[in-house]
């Protein structure tokens, strides 16, 4: 008997065969089998990470300092202070954007964050989980369930695909984290495992092909704002799945498609700062000003 899984198909099969009701519980069993750590220990560790996520979101927002390049800082504050009644976004979405950008602003200042799954995409999952927990008044336990569900989706992406933007572009970072966040918030509001996985498929599908083209090679532009957009994307995918909209392409095949696209992607679009936004006239001008050595 093994609770390790390489695909969402296998994940669903494990739930069926062993009559396990949630993705989070399969993930906990797999973790115990792999590392010998009891579910209580794993949950406590995840709760500690949730706190670090929260701290990084708040520190990022409250710190008025710009990053070393001068490109990042102050945007989380703007979306906090805007007149919410004038926005298209719901309150949970507005808050999610604020937290997501806040974490990324911390990250750009060499602050402490939780990579989820990477540092360049570390805003999306905390943004979604913290905003939903807060606005819907959910327990910490529910938020931890969300993070464990996200981990389950992440394990599938790690096995079939990759989290490396140098290997597969931004689709492997913002795409992956958006899929994980979509599943997390779906689980937090009690959607079935099938619908959680479907939400992940919807989210990743729409971010396929996303290039990694950071200006000056910094994890700043467009990374910070892409996290702010990615979290809304994740919540939209969860809402669509909640409404019963299904992805025609199953999640595992969407991840395979991501790998296929990566094989057609030139090196310039894979974290080398040699293509896309990184080579626009404005980016070149900023690069000369802010990081004279690169």
């Amino acid at each position, binding site marked *: 008997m093994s609770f*390790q899984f*390489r695909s969402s198909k296998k994940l669903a099969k494990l739930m069926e065969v062993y009559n396990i009701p949630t993705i989070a519980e399969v*993930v906990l069993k797999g*973790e115990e089998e*792999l*590392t*010998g*750590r009891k579910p209580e*220990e794993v949950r406590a*560790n*995840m709760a500690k*990470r949730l706190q*670090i996520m929260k701290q990084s979101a708040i520190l990022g927002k409250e710190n008025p300092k710009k990053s070393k*390049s001068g490109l990042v800082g102050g945007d989380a504050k703007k979306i906090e202070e805007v007149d919410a009644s004038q926005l298209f976004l719901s309150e949970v979405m507005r808050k999610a954007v604020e937290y997501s950008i806040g974490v990324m602003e*911390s*990250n*750009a*200042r*060499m*602050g*402490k*964050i*939780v*990579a*989820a*799954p*990477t*540092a*360049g995409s*570390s805003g999306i*999952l905390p943004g979604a989980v913290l905003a939903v927990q807060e606005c819907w008044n959910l327990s910490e336990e529910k938020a931890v369930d969300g993070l*464990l569900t*996200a*981990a389950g989706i*992440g*394990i599938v992406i*790690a*096995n079939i695909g*990759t*989290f*490396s*933007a*140098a*290997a597969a572009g931004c689709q*492997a970072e913002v795409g992956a984290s958006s899929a*994980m966040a979509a599943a997390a918030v779906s689980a937090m509001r009690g959607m079935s495992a099938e619908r959680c996985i479907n939400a992940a498929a919807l989210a990743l599908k729409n971010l396929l092909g996303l290039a990694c083209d*950071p200006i*000056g*090679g*910094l*994890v*700043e532009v467009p990374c910070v704002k892409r996290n702010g957009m990615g979290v809304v994307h994740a919540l939209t995918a969860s809402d669509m799945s909640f409404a019963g909209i299904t992805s025609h392409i199953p999640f595992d095949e969407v991840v395979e498609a991501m790998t296929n696209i990566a094989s057609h992607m030139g*090196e310039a679009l*894979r*974290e*080398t*700062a*040699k293509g896309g936004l990184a080579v626009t006239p404005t980016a070149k001008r900023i690069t000369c000003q802010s*990081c004279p050595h*690169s």
Partner: protein
Amino acid sequence: MKDTWSVFDIIGPVMVGPSSSHTAGACKIGYMARHILGDIPDKATIKLHGSFGEVFEGHCTDTAIIGGLLGMIPSDENLPLAYEKAKELGMEIDMESVNLGSHLHPNTVQLTLEKNGISHTITGSSLGGGSVNIIEIDKIEILLNGSFSSLLIHFESDACPLKNILELLTALPQTLVRTETKDNKNLSLFHAEIREAEIDEEIFKKMAKMPGVQWASFVPHISHYHF
């Protein structure tokens, strides 16, 4: 790519920014290399390949590798100060961007570390999300991913101390995950993966002093529960 993942490989690492592959992964490779050498190096030659060579400065890849060589882990909030600390210790650092070959992962670094006349050349790749592989030590192919601790023993194949090493190993309370032995001409590199982050010092010394053993290292894994 490894085939088993902890939830904390995915929701983690806890780290200082800005990049999991170019900062946290780079720090981890430096940390593992420092332990393969057995001490903080006096001299480090750092060859950055692919994306590592292209964008290291903005991601603080160089700082992170040096922090790792000093024994810092990715969540260490002193990591941004690594250059200054290395300077205080008088570490000699040579850094260049190179092409090590298209077969390698785009985030790869080759480190040549020296301390008291001992030198090792270690190649490691950062796979994304903070996961890393050490793929070569002194031209011997190997696979250390840092999920578990690693015991490395390099010995003259003829001396064949393996039986005695294994006897000592199995007597330890630690959980042995996997072993491999790689031969290169008349020398062999034995690698045992161990679940715990420590090893009995007396027993380790005994192994290191066995006839035919050229060097031995213990590379502790960075626990998901320590940050």
